[in-house]
Structures are given as C-alpha cells and as structure tokens.
C-alpha cells in the first residue's frame, strides 16, 4: 500500500548517491557533453591569451616603440575574441539543449511512472503536491545540468590554465602570488559553513511562515469570530521577525565574505608589486610580465567566487532530486507487471467469493462478501452512504486489491488477468463524469482511433447525446472546456454512456449520479440506460427508483456486509433493511415533483465547496 509522500526531505547538501543517479541522465548525451567539455577547454585557453598578449605588447613593442607590432597584436586579439565568442555560444547552446533534453526525459520518466502507480497513491496525495514533482522540481534541476555541473569544469580549467601560465612565466613569483590561495580557500570554507547552517535556519523559518499563513487563511473566519486578529498578528509578526533575523545573519556573513575575497586579491596584487617589482628592478622579470601577472591574478578570483554560487544551485538541486527519486522509487501497481493473460472476449459472469477488504489495517470495509452475477443479468447494489458499495467497484476493476477471498470473472480469478485487458472489457461509468480537455469527439473516442465518425455519431444518437451536440456550432469538434463547461451534468452522463458504449463492453459497471438533473434530461438518461444495459451484465450502484425496479436482483449492503438479496418486490415484502432504505431514498422519487432530499451528508457551505473545487483545479 502506498502511503502519503511527504515533501520534507533530509536535506543534505551533497549526496553522492543522488548525484550518481542524476548523472545517469547525462549518459544518453555523452557525445554532446564531451564535446561541450572540449569547447570549455578551448574557451579557457582563449581566455588566457589576453593578458599574455598584453605582456608581449609591452615587452616587445611598447617598450621599444614599435607601433606596427601593436597592429598585429590587436588583429590577433580580435580573432581570439571572435572565436571565443562563437565557441561560448556553441557551448551554451549545446549544454542548454542537453539540459532541456534531460528535463524532458525526467518529466517523461516521472509521468510514465506515475501512470502505473496504484490508485491508493492518488487517493492519499493531493494532486497539487504531485504536480510539483513533474513541474517545479524538474525545473530546479535544469540549472544544475545547464549551468552547474559542466561549468564547474570550465572554472577548474581556467584556474589550472592560469596557474600553468604563471609558472611558465616566472615560477618564483607564481609561488609568491599563489601563496594567498590557501587563505582564500580557508575563507570560502568558513563562509560556506556559516552560511549553510543559517540557510537551514532560514528554510525552517520560511516553512513556519508558510504553514502559519496557510492555517490562518483557511481558519480566518475562526480568528475573526473570536476577535483574535491582534493575537494572531502578534504571533505572525514574531515568526516573521525570526525569519528576518535569520536573514540578517546571512547578510552579515555575505557582507563580510565579499570584501574579504577582495582584500585577499588585493593582497596578491600587493605581493606582485612588492616581490615582482623588485624582480623587475633586478631585471629578472620584464615589466610586461608583471602587468600580465596582475591581470591573471584578477581573473583568478572570479572562478573561485563562482564556485560558491554553484554551491547554492547544487543544494536546491539535491533537495528537488530527492523528492523526485522518492516518487520514482515507489513500486508500481503489481497488475502492470504481471505476464498478461488474455482471454477470448469476456462473457460477463462475475463472482465474489468470501471477499474481505480494508483500506487500512483491519478496518474492514467489506466483510465476507459473496454473490454471483450471471451473464446478461442486471444487478443493483443499494445501501446507505459508507456501506461499502464503491469498494466493490474498486475491487472488481482492480483499482484496489482485496485482502481475502476470490473475485472471479468467467470463472477465472481476476488477479490472474492482465489489469489493462480486464479494464478494456469493462464499461465503467462513474458518478462524476470526468472530461479531458479537448473536443467532444476526443472525449468520446478516448484514444480509440478505429472508431469511425459515422459510428461515433450513431452511438451519440443512440444515447440521445447527438441532439445536444448538433446544436453547437462546431459540433463534435467543440472544446468541452469552452467557457467553463458547455455540457450540463445530465449531458455529461449521456456522454459517459456513449463513451462506454463505444468499447462495446460485456460488463457494465455504473455508479449512478445523485446530482439534480432537469426532468427532461432525466427521462433521456433513463431511456439511454435501459438501452445500455440491454444484453450486458450490469452492476449498478443505484440511486434511481427506475433502475432498481428494472434490476433482476438487488444486493443490499449494510455496514460492509451483504444483508439482503432479491427482487424489488421480494425485498419490500421482507420489510427489513431494503424496505427502510426504500423509505428514505427512493420512495419520494415516485412523487411528481421530487423534493431534493439527500441521503444524510452533513450540509456544507456551497461557497466553500466551490472554493475547494477551484483549488483542486489550480
């Protein structure tokens, strides 16, 4: 069973296990990555040319007053710049491409994987949270791939190149100049340590602000009812201030770090002036080389500063990838993994044998359920809210797995059947008809391309849907989401009928809608339903009197057990549970103008329900 997937992660800054997994996504783009590294190497080399040309210019030409030599140097410099420009663009383009492809691959991986997760997973995790995995979290990784991993190599190349050139020019001065590097590393390490702990604090405190806001917005009416605005504001101001304080601390470290790096680089330049200067005086170093040394030293510090920026990218990428891999590591629904066993088209006999089922532990929702539905029979399942009716459907379609007993279709245990094939043989119509964005036709077809246009319209006529659709200017091509929703609840029902009918299923499972439908459409639905059930094994969670009256058999479920079974008349005569349910739920439907009486849900505020729906859509 899949539980709730938390957003909270351990939050390590660097996790080699995660990193290795992430790098696997680079593997298909090896060639591009290697090429891009090569380009980076070239770019780093070209970056070294500038200061060296300055050295040559000063030593050979400026000092000796050769003006024509400068032209040549300038021309060479120009070409170097131009080539570097082109290579840089190429390198960026390739790496961005790789980054985008990897994100594409990741998104596909997560999405495909989630398609195969069991339904319990979706029932337990809010949609909004799951979406973040496919969207935001993947987006965070983009930076890691496009500008993180690879450019770190670029920085390292540049550093190595500078060190190499400095040593070639003058090894003694190089040693003196580079003597500040340990200092720089020490400062960076110290800074990182301090910043890391305060960033952890910041994250904790912003999470607290978010939780507080969330809670207070949804409970604002309670706060207002009890006139607690001032008290809650004080609490908010307090955690807000703590958050501010945590930041002020990092600001302190940042404000200290940047000047410190600048001071260290000034230290390097001072050493060059002092030691290199005396070498110039002693004629062991040229003036041009001294200038070049200063320019190289300035360039030396950029990549190091860059590296600490990259650290932040790395940190958020680690957190995002951990959340992603948590999803990818969830086991898929077993039914997707088994060897498909298909049968000749289903005949439609359904049998439950002593089935027990619980969503959690031993809290039985269904207890010892046994019944048989013969081919072509229409069976209505009735019971109060929460009696366990929907769970029967969930088991039969293999959305959930029973705990004990056996469920057989045409005499074969459904667990031996391929779930995809099984579902393809069933026409399932749920209470709330779900429409995918797209045209009416696409919603009818649902991927079934073999269905001809003529057959499609024939089906629609058959279930009385056609008369509504033909009124739309664009007919079957009308977008179902146009102006909110163009179809009424009743029309959606009819569409769901046509959709199910298109697959010509032998077994029909229907959870009748309870929503109020105008009497005219209601009649159409009843008529269409009769046609739909004709010649098919039908299992219906019934809310309509006409449906139960038409059923061959009624199964009464009460508190997870089958309590009564028989026809409408038989059960009424028994004057037991069915009789009572009939009094509460169905009897009123005989009246000409039925009073909309619900089965006993506590009333809810219609506006807040609307809001909930809106939020779900977000």
């Amino acid at each position: 069973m899949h539980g709730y997937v938390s957003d909270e992660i351990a939050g390590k800054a660097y996790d080699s296990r995660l990193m290795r997994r992430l790098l696997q996504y680079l593997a298909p783009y090896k060639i591009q990555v290697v090429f891009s590294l090569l380009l980076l190497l070239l770019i780093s080399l070209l970056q070294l040319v500038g200061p060296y040309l300055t050295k040559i210019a000063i030593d050979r030409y400026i000092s000796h007053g050769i003006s024509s030599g400068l032209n040549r140097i300038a021309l060479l410099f120009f070409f170097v710049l131009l080539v570097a420009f082109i290579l840089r663009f190429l390198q960026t383009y390739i790496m961005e491409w790789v980054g985008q492809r990897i994100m594409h691959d990741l998104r596909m991986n997560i999405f495909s994987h989630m398609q195969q997760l069991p339904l319990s997973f979706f029932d337990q995790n809010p949609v909004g949270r799951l979406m973040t995995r496919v969207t935001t979290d993947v987006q965070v990784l983009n930076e890691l791939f496009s500008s993180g991993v690879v450019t770190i190599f670029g920085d390292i190349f540049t550093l190595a190149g500078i060190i190499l050139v400095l040593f070639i020019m003058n090894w003694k001065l190089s040693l003196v100049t580079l003597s500040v590097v340990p200092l720089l590393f020490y400062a960076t390490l110290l800074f990182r340590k301090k910043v890391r702990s305060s960033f952890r604090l910041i994250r904790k405190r912003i999470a607290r602000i978010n939780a507080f806001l969330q809670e207070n917005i949804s409970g604002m009416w309670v706060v207002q009812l009890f006139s607690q605005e001032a008290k809650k504001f004080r609490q908010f101001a307090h955690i807000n201030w703590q958050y501010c304080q945590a930041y002020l601390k990092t600001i302190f470290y940042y404000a200290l770090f940047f000047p410190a790096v600048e001071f260290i680089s000034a230290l390097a330049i001072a050493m060059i002036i002092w030691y290199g200067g005396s070498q110039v005086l002693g004629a062991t170093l040229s003036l041009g080389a001294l200038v070049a040394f200063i320019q190289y030293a300035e360039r030396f510090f950029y990549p190091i500063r860059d590296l600490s920026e990259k650290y932040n990218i790395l940190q958020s990428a680690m957190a995002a990838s951990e959340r992603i891999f948590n999803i990818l590591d969830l086991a898929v629904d077993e039914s997707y993994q088994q060897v498909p066993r298909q049968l000749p088209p289903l005949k439609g006999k359904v049998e439950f044998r002593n089935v027990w089922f619980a969503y959690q532990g031993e809290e039985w929702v269904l207890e010892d359920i046994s019944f048989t539905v013969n081919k072509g029979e229409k069976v209505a399942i009735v019971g109060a809210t929460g009696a366990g009716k929907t769970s029967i459907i969930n088991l039969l379609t293999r959305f959930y797995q029973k705990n004990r007993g056996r469920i057989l279709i045409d005499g074969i245990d459904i667990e031996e059947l391929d779930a995809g094939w099984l579902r393809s043989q069933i026409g399932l119509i749920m209470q709330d008809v779900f429409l995918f964005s797209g045209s009416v036709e696409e919603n009818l077809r649902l991927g079934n391309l073999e269905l001809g246009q003529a057959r499609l319209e024939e089906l629609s006529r058959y279930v009385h849907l056609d008369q509504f659709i033909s009124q739309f200017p664009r007919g079957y091509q009308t977008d179902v989401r146009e102006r909110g929703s163009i179809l009424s609840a009743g029309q959606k029902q009819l569409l769901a009928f046509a959709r199910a009918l298109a697959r010509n299923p032998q077994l029909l499972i229907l959870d009748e809608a309870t929503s109020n439908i105008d009497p005219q459409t209601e009649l159409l639905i009843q008529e269409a339903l009769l046609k739909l059930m004709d010649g098919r094994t039908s299992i219906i969670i019934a809310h309509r009197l006409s449906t139960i009256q038409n059923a061959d058999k009624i199964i009464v479920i009460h508190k997870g057990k089958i309590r009564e079974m028989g026809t409408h008349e038989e059960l009424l005569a028994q004057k037991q549970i069915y009789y009572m349910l009939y009094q509460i739920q169905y009897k009123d439907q005989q009246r000409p103008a039925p009073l909309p009486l619900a089965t006993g849900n506590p009333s809810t505020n219609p506006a807040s329900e609307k809001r909930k729906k809106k939020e779900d859509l977000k």
Partner: protein
Amino acid sequence: MILKELSPLFSYLSKHKKGIAVGCVWLILTNCFVLSLPWVLKYAIDGLKGGINSRALSFYASLILAVSLVAGVFRFLMRRGLIGISRKIEYDLRNDFFRHLQRLSPSYFNRTPTGDLMSRATNDLDAVRMLLGPGLLNLFNTIIISITAVSLMIYIDPWLSLYSLIPLPFLSLIINRMGKELYWRFERVQAHYSRLSAQVQENFAGIRVVKAYGQESDQIKRFRRSNLEFVSKNMSLVKIWGFFLPLMLLFSGMGMLIVLWLGGKAVIVNRITLGEFVAFNGYLIMLVWPITALGWVLNLFQRGATSMGRISQILQQKPDISNASHPIRVTSLRGEIELRNVIFAYEENSEPVLKGISLKIPPGSTLAIVGPTGSGKSTLVNLIPRLYDPTGGSLLIDGTDIRRIPLKILRRHIGYVPQEGFLFSDTIRENIALGKISFKEDEVMAAASASQILEDINHFPRKFLTQTGERGITLSGGQKQRVGLARALIANPRILILDDPFSQVDTSTEEAIWKSIREKTAGSTKILVTHRISSVRDADRIIVLSGGKIVEEGTHKELLARKGTYAELYRKQLIRQELEEL
C-alpha cells in the same frame, strides 16, 4: 508604468531614510577607495619604469593593502546596511499584508484560492525584496562607478576613453533589441509551462478514468508531444539568451583590445605613461561587471514592479465587512435576534440562497433549524456573527441593525460552533481558550468537561499542553467538534450558534453534551442547525428551511401534527436510526 506600481514602496523606504542615506555614503566611500587602487598601480608601474628603490616598492604594496582594507570595511558596512534594510522592509510588508488579510471577510477567501494568496506573500514579496536589495544597490553602484570611472579615464586620456567606450552604446542597443525578443519568447515558454502543468493536473485528477479506459499509454503520448514542444520553445529562447553572456564578454574584450592597441600607441608617442595605460585597463575592467549586471538589474525591477502590483491588489482590497461609520455605543447584548425579509446570495447575479427570511428569536430561547442539504441553514446562521452580510433585508440584534454594532462587541457575545472544528497548530489549551485574553486553568477544564472532551484530553501525552496539527497529534472529527464547543462555551456567550456540531459524536455523548449546554448557558439565546431530529425536540421553536425559504415553523408537537415536511423528516430520521442499529 513601473514607477506607478512601485509608488507604494516609497512610504516603506522613507521609514528607513536615515539608514539608506548612511548606506549611500558608505557606497560612495567604497567606490572612492576601490577606484583609487588602479591609481596606486599607475604610480608603482611608472616608478618601476623610472627605477625606484625597493622601499618605495614596499610602500606602494602596503598602500594597496591599506586602501583595499578600508574599501572592504566600507563595503561591509554598505552591504550590511542596505541589504539589511531591504529585509526589514520585507518584514514590514509581510506584516501589513497579513494584517490586511485579517480584515477581509470570509466571502473574499471563498473567492480567492489560498495558494494564490500564499504565493503573493512569499514569491511576489521575494521579488519585491530583490528589487529593494540587490536591485537598488546595484543600480546605485553602477551609476556611481560609471560616472567616476569614466571621468578618471577621461582625465587620463579623453581620446582613448572615447574609442574604448565606443562599443558600449552598440552593446546597449543590441541588448535592448534582444531584450524585447527575449521577453516574448520567455512569455511563450511560460505559457506553455502552464499548459504542461494543466495537462499533468488533469491527468492526476482523472486518473481513475485514465486507468479504467486504459488510457495510460495514450496519455503518455500526449504528454510527450507537449513536453517536446516545451523543449523546442525553450530552445528558441536559448537561441537568443545564449548570445547574452558571450556578447557581453566580446564587447568588454573589444574595449580591452582598443586600449591595448590605441593605448599602446599612445604610450609609444608618450601621450600617456605605461602606468596610466595599466590603470586605464583597470578602470575598464571595473566597468564591465556593473554594466553587464545592468540587464539583470532591469529585469529585477520589471519583476519587482509586477509583483508589487500583485501585492497592492490585495492591499487595496476593501474589506466588505467592517465597522459602520457611526457605530452605536454598546458594551453588552441581550441576545434578541430578528431577521426581516433577509435575502442572501454568495455572488452577485447568482441565485439567492436565502429568499426572504423573517424571524424573531426572543432572548434566552432556543431555535432549531432543520431542512435538506443546501436549503440555506448554515448560510442563515453565518449572517448572525457577520461572517457574511445580507444582500437584502435587515438583521437586528436587540432591535439595532447588526451593522451598527461594533464588530468586536458583536462577536464577543456570540459563541459559534461550526460543523468542522477548526484547530490551530497550538496546544489544546490555547485552542480552547482562543477567545479569552486571560483565563484560569479551571475555566479551561470546566469548558472541556462540559463538552465531554476532558477524558479524551487526559489520555493525550501532555494533556492540555498537547500540540495539535502538523507537528502534533491529529484529533478525530468528533474530538475536533467537541474542542470547538469548549472554545465557544468558555467565553460564556449571550448567543450560542451550533451549526450541526455533533454529527460525528455518538448519540449518548451528544445527550450528555446537551445537558451541560443547557446548564451552562441557561439564559443565552441558542440557535441549532442539525440533521438529527432527536436533538431538536426540546427547542422552543423549530423552523424548516427548504430552497432558501421557511416552509414550516412551530414546536415539535405542532409540526408533527401538521404531517408536512418536518413530520416526513422526522419519520425518515427514525428509520435511519433504526437502520443504524441493525
């Protein structure tokens, strides 16, 4: 446009006038010292060419150290000051944002998704903070460093400055051009991103249909298609964006090339010294970063302005329920309630939920409201503490229009127990004593005991100090309902509203609760909304709502005798109870 959006920020900035002024002084001083470094270098190089002694050399070296040390101190003060102020403004803004939310009515929160408000309080606020902090800082920095560095360069050699700065106007022209195109392509990427998100959302929401109709592979195919399109939209953005940094580097390189080439020649003809040549180069390098950052800064301003606009939208939202301009002076209420032809609709032009309700509830009496789901029962009781105001008609308490009673006084006298107990992530004690500023321990105990929750609480690990919510224990629905009742009872209200509060409490507990409610609130007006007829029988009066209208009213006996809706409801209730026991 940008300025208009940002104008609300001026009052926040002016609160920190002094700090900002001091920070600007540090900023200027920092730049003065930083800019003098190449000048020291110039003396050193020229000195080396002229053959100075090693003592002068160590003097220059220590001068460089001293100057950069002082510059560092100033930079530290500047960053800590200015960036710190941006964080403090963020703090002020977030407080104001929250304070304003507290003044908005439930109908506003019904209309507005929580996620949207949250993202304004976090993401948008962050964008505004970026503008105020790094945005303003870099803008000032760029302006000051450009002016001073360029004037120093001109001082060294006007012609050389002119030539080496020639690429800059071209650069800004190209950036401007590219910026627009970049903006459009970015918009397109964003638009597709939301489409991609919507697709994922749809798939997850409809996963049951996807699985039932074997649409998994078809959905994957569809997702792949728009995923690939997203890649190509992104790549079209990269085609421009990828030029940005290389182009910047090309242009700054060109500046250096010109200095090397023409500056070198100037040294040869003795127009400038070699030291000046090196210093000139240094200034040019100093200019590169701030000018490169200018594009980023502009982007920060754009985003900050948009975000500030989104925050202002909320801050300018007028609260639709607030104190009247001429409230009456009252300190206590008797608890007489009267509704005169009250009409209420959740949204303009939508069908009213209450269609003309007239009703008088004498102080100290008990009114029960029954009726089918959606008949307007909860809506009706929500009007009394002014969670909503009637769309038409009037509501009077003690003979005064409810809108003229100060909101605080009104709500202090009303105890409201909702269907679903709402708990804050706090201790149970704080949750019960929510409405009290000061309270005694035994008051909390008494309220808990009257609500039949005391025993449950005593079983919790830390009793009344047990945390609830995210980082604590989760209470069951029935427990939450009872905490909600205790919260209302502790305040000893004149008017007690119970909106179907015992739906998740078993019948025997409910009876005990009723007994203590009657004892504790003997003189209070009580209004009860319920599905359980059993708890209605003793009410002084019962009304039956259907479709937003009162269809029947009277006592239990009278209504039963009428054999109408109430009698039918009662009968069904009896059957349901019987069914429950089977």
